[in-house]
């Protein structure tokens, strides 16, 4: 056993010396005092080469001195590795297939998630958008106050909708929209971007000093929820005017909130609520439950 250990150590030493020698060769000379350093380099190399030769000889001697062991060495559990080679018995195959499937799935999912997150339009920071397009002026934040007045007056409003614009927060506007006798909505602007929307019933007070309280009616709380998701959908910092116009058009479709049955189930009431969701493109009414099926 000692002999075997000595041999293994000798092999290790040999390997490390060979490695050092090659490292030395790879480093080369330092390039200064050409003749002198060359001589030194060659001398060093010869020394190392001599050491390798002597060690090689030593290893050979040790190997010759080794004897075939009389009994097999005990190698612990690793010994069994060689004994069972049939794939069926090791039960490795199903596990391998499973892990392969897992890795495949993880890959697929992460790919989809990556794509989705990349297209995430709900991200509202301007910096993110400006990465795609080369630096636009921050027009959507710092707009002159007249612009929003002009914008709202430009929207061709149906006769049943009225707008009241005021500025409780400095230059940022708040527009209170009254849609027929159905609902009131307060749209809080930041520049031209829509920052918040509150929806209330026609008979509820909605004044500038109380823009944040929720409606006491379930249906308008639900409409407000949908209004927020639509606000994120229509959000577009690069074309803020268009975003506001499309949003207001969408909001105006609530004039028939109680009048139109759901497009899918043709019923008026589901869970005690009328069809509160308006499709973002077609403006068709749907119940919240019906819109995704």
């Amino acid at each position, binding site marked *: 056993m000692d002999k075997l250990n000595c041999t293994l150590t000798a092999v290790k030493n040999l390997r490390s010396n060979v490695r050092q020698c090659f490292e030395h060769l790879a480093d080369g000379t330092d390039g200064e005092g050409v003749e002198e350093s060359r001589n030194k380099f060659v001398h060093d190399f010869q020394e190392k080469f001599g050491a390798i030769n002597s060690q090689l000889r030593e290893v050979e001697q040790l190997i010759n001195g080794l004897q075939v062991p009389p009994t097999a060495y005990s190698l612990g559990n690793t010994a069994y590795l060689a004994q069972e080679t049939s794939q069926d018995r090791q039960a490795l195959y199903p596990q391998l297939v499973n892990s392969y499937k897992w890795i495949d799935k993880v890959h697929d999912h992460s790919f989809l998630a990556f794509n989705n997150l990349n297209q995430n339009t709900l991200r509202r920071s301007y910096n993110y958008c400006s990465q795609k397009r080369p630096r636009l002026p921050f027009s959507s934040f710092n707009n002159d106050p007249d612009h929003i007045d002009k914008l709202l007056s430009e929207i061709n409003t149906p006769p049943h909708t009225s707008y009241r614009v005021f500025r409780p927060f400095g230059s940022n506007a708040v527009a209170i929209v009254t849609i027929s*006798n159905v609902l009131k909505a307060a749209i809080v602007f930041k520049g031209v971007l829509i920052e918040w929307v509150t929806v209330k019933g026609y*008979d509820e007070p909605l004044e500038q000093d109380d823009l944040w309280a929720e*409606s006491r*009616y*379930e*249906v308008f709380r639900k409409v407000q929820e949908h209004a927020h998701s639509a606000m994120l959908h229509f959000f577009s910092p690069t074309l803020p005017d268009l975003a506001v116009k499309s949003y207001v058009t969408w909001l105006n479709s609530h004039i028939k909130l109680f009048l139109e049955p759901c497009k899918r189930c043709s019923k*008026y009431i589901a869970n*005690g*609520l*009328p069809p509160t969701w308006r499709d973002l493109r077609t403006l068709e009414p749907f119940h919240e439950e019906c819109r995704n099926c």
Partner: protein
Amino acid sequence: MGVTVLQPYPMPEGKSGAHIIDYLGKRLLSLGATHAGQFLVDCETFISTPQPHNGTPGRAVHVLHNSEYPASTFSIIDSGTGKQVSLVADSIFDLLMLKMTNTFTSKKQTKIESRGARFEYGDFVIKLGSVTMMEHFKGILIEIEYKSCMILAYCWEMIREMLQGFLNINVGKDFPTYFATQTIMTAMGQQQLHAKHNDLYEPTDTVKQYLEQFTNYRKHVSMHGSLSGTSGIQQPVHMSSSPVMGAAGGLVLIRS
């Protein structure tokens, strides 16, 4: 406050009122509605005295209370020619009527009320009222209110679907008679068609609908000839000046 519609429930043969109320209440609960207290609407009618001699019907004042508006007293003056003037006052108005016993006397026999359980389902408030006149059961009146809408024309289809859903009866597609288009006189003295279902709804409209239904029940009674004019000295009547929301609200009669 929103649009309210009153719907009389046709009484099937051989079933008691309590049984039907119980049945409808169970249907509402299984629909997902929650029980939310009691309600009471009462109506007392005062007739002007002395009665006119030329055969025209006397002027009547109907005084109504609605537990949904506990601080108010609703009164409707009926000239007998179909013209109605309505007034909403504080509940102290009841005491004022007591002072007017010389000109208006109360027809006690016609004191009528509708009371029962109140249910809420989303923004709907549904009241199952059993109508009683002088402690006699008269029928069932279903009140349904859609709190978030102010105009009947907008939400009539919704209310209709809801009514048909839990009452299991057919409700006509037309607006209820109270909201039907009527001819009115404008301030300029011209006749004009007026679509009441496009008006903004007011609490008085609820009360007027109740009066309309109560009058129907009374007519039904008067056909049996059980009504006679009040005669003799009127007993003083004391009315509670603060109707309470719930079953105890309304009028308390104490005879001296």
